[in-house]
């Protein structure tokens, strides 16, 4: 590996570790789920409460608070060949530490490179998510790829284009300004000479320090970016040729299975492997509480585990899913500082005084990511060097976890992420990677570990449950006077209010984890938007004011007003409503993008059941890179949001998940899908923001508000109607 690249990677990695993350990204600070004992001759030393998982946040996170939306050139490697390579045959290869998990950045990033470098889209190949080949990246999460990676690749491509122009100018003995770049060719219009990029690249190494203010092509001049191009490698996916991690099968591979405890918090107290070890071809590993087997077939690996004589001492977390909300409220940690509180004005005084008062509590259940491709990894050792293929959003983070748990240097480890079958924030940690690597080391053969669906629903981390308490006061003519908003455990993303309120107190309260929890698409913004937008709706109805009018009356943010009005217009708010129908509206903004959703509910007056029949979501994220991809993302997020809104919930008792399979955990299916329209607002004058998460945030409150409109039943819990609507 290139020396400059590795030095820069180390520097960025160290820098990233010091940056704070959103508190609800519990998986970053909870530590790896496996902790292995050191070999006896090693000097045992533990830091803190176990083996740390670094809180790795993209270096660009620091720039979210900086005035400009740029990047710091000194943090990026100066050797272009490490980022972008133009081959002698004209292929352009761009290297990027982000990963493809179905959000189609493989396509949009390639469009960006092709656009800036002035080459045909088909000639660009992305190499992504490979710790040996690609630059350091903290992880593909937080909707960061479009706002951060895209500008970086643009600058790199732009600098490469400048190098090519300079090289041609030198060759032709003209000024660089006379040379034009287009369609992978350089031309000197005055003389009619031209050269292909491929010919110029022949035998050279293009290298340049990136200038700090390299001008990049503005969105108004985009020719390839901005177009709805189809997914790269689409053919491989429709033919089954693409290999996801569970499809990999290196020579000599064994199948790995992990023995799972009967409940959370259980400790292994009896272990006897005598029956299992005699099974032919089976390799058994026991390392502290980690017990696993590898064998030539999955069936034999399971048989080896079954042949173990084990016993556990159980110590499950106390609350069940029925008691979790009162438990979370009761067990909030005492405040050490004001870190998660915002305050303005005199909330308590105004709440106690005149004005129309409304208080409510909102409960949000744990839900699972349930990506269709389960967590999986293939690990292969060559001496003391390890290669792991795994569907992860953080290949460099996983490399760090592997280094810590296996006690080998990061430089001995290569993590590769094949294009993955979705993640939604659930694939940040290296669980399967660690399991496969540990087994492979013992077996001296490659090992593949693929989690079963039951393991997925049990041992992965969930979107944390939460309790949100809101106290508010408005004037009788509909102005917000006071807003007191408290989130317990769920998180602080989206906890602010965009509305104008003179007296505000907003606070996030930590509660020690009950179930393993962590990032989920949108983080706590879904819960916080649900509470806020439901509450706003209830306030509006309490004074018989139209919910859209009420919001606009208290809103100055022009971009949020724009999406509200665009959604309402497309939806036909409020005039299009018919009998036995309910209309609901909700809006929010996060991570530099804005969303508003209108929902229509159909009520069957005989049975009392309700159905979502229509959603219209308006979304604005600055300049749109691929309108087709964006539309797909917005609609996809809305459909996923239906699940969390209507019926998804993890049920648990005595430290066991009661519904760890699709037959009992209801995911949105074809017949659940309403008419959905996305209204995309393209702001070419605003830097592109990400779109992976924000579109999900207004779905649940819009639907809840529509249900109220149709039935007069106010639902304050997510999921809204897991068993259908109960008659009041």
């Amino acid at each position, binding site marked *: 590996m290139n020396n400059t690249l590795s030095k820069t990677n180390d520097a960025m990695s160290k820098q990233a570790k010091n940056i704070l993350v959103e508190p609800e990204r519990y998986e970053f600070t909870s530590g790896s789920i496996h902790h292995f004992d050191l070999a006896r001759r090693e000097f045992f030393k533990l830091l803190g409460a176990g083996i740390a998982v670094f809180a790795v946040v993209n270096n660009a996170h620091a720039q979210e608070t900086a005035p400009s939306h740029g990047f710091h050139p000194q943090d990026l490697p100066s050797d272009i060949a490490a980022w972008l390579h133009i081959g002698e045959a004209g292929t352009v290869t761009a290297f990027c530490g982000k990963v493809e998990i179905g959000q189609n950045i493989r396509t949009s990033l390639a469009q960006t490179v092709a656009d800036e470098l002035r080459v045909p889209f088909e000639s660009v190949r992305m190499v992504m998510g490979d710790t040996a080949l690609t630059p350091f990246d903290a992880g593909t999460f937080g909707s960061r790829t479009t706002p951060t990676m895209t500008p970086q690749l643009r600058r790199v491509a732009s600098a490469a284009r400048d190098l090519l122009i300079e090289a041609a100018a030198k060759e032709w003995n003209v000024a660089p300004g006379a040379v034009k770049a287009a369609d992978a060719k350089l031309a000197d219009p005055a003389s009619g000479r031209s050269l292909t990029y491929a010919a110029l690249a022949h035998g050279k190494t293009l290298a340049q320090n990136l200038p700090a203010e390299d001008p990049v092509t503005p969105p108004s001049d985009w020719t390839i970016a901005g177009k709805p191009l189809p997914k790269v490698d689409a053919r491989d*996916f429709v033919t089954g040729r693409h290999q996801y991690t569970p499809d990999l099968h290196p020579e000599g591979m064994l199948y790995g299975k992990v023995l799972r405890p009967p409940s959370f918090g259980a400790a292994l107290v009896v272990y006897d492997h005598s029956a299992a070890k005699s099974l032919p071809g089976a390799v058994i590993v026991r390392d502290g509480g980690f017990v696993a087997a590898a064998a030539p077939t999955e069936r034999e690996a399971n048989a080896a585990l079954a042949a173990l004589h084990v016993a556990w001492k159980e110590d499950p977390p106390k609350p069940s899913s029925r008691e979790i909300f009162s438990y979370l409220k009761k067990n909030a940690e005492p405040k050490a500082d004001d870190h998660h509180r915002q305050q303005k004005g005199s909330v308590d005084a105004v709440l106690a005084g005149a004005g129309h008062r409304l208080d409510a509590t909102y409960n949000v259940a744990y839900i699972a990511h349930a990506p269709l491709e389960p967590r999986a990894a293939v690990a292969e050792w060559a001496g003391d060097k390890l290669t792991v293929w795994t569907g992860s959003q953080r290949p460099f983070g996983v490399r760090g976890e592997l280094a810590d748990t296996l006690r080998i240097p990061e430089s001995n480890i290569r993590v590769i992420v094949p294009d993955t079958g979705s993640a939604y924030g659930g694939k940040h940690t290296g669980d399967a990677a660690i399991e496969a690597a540990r087994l492979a080391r013992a077996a001296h053969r490659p090992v593949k570990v693929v989690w079963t669906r039951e393991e997925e629903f049990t041992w992965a981390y969930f979107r944390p449950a939460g309790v949100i308490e809101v106290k508010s006061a408005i004037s009788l003519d509909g102005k917000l006077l006071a807003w007191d908003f408290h989130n317990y455990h769920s998180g602080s993303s989206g906890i602010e209010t965009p509305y104008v309120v003179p007296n505000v107190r907003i606070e996030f309260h930590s509660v020690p984890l009950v179930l393993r929890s962590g990032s989920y698409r949108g983080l706590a913004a879904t819960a916080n938007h649900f509470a806020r937008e439901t509450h706003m709706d209830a306030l509006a109805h309490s004074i018989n004011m139209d919910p859209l009018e009420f919001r606009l009356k208290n809103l100055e943010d022009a971009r949020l007003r724009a999406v509200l009005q665009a959604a309402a217009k497309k939806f036909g708010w409020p005039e299009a409503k018919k009998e036995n129908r309910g209309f609901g509206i909700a809006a929010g903004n996060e991570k530099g993008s804005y969303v508003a959703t209108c929902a229509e509910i159909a009520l069957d007056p005989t049975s009392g059941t309700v159905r979502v029949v229509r959603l219209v979501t308006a979304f604005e994220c600055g300049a749109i890179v691929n309108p087709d991809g964006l539309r797909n993302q917005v609609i996809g997020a809305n459909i996923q949001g239906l699940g969390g809104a209507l019926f998804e919930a993890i049920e648990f008792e005595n430290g066991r998940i009661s519904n760890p399979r699709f037959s009992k955990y209801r995911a949105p299916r074809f017949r659940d899908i309403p008419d959905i329209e996305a209204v995309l607002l393209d702001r070419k004058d605003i830097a592109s923001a990400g779109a992976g998460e924000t579109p999900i945030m207004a779905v649940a409150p819009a639907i809840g508000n529509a249900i109220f409109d149709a039935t007069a039943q106010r639902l304050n819990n997510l999921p809204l109607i897991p068993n259908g609507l109960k008659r009041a």
Partner: protein
Amino acid sequence: MPDGIEIEVNGKRYPVHYPPETPLLYVLRDDLGLTGSKYGCGEGQCGSCTVLLGGQPRRSCQIAVSAAVGKPVTTIEGLEKNGQLHPVQQAFIDAGGFRCAYCTPGMIISSVGLLQANPNPSSAEIAQFLQGNICRCGTQPRILDAVHQAAKTMQERGR
């Protein structure tokens, strides 16, 4: 190596090295190396493992390989003929009917099965037929478009 079972997949005969009660999905993926059909749940609830067995779409994680003896199996790998994609495959590309595409082989095979039985289905009929196929990325609207498009193409070609 037990039994000497043989199955026919995509027009080719394969000996089976796994016990006869092994679900067909694992024989296809692990024994025969045909990894196009996916594991998503192992309980027949997600549709990722769908293959055509005797022309009928079936969840291969729920069928013992012994039950596949003597009936032709078609997997996603068997749809392309002489470098030409099946109209349903092409329609999925043209309509952009996938995000992460993990559900896609199962969706395509199920759709092929549907169109064989019902060459001109309504959206409601498609949704009903694909109710057993989960798409977690939320691409269902485009999948409906893809199936409509494929139905149209296939009718025009008289297939």
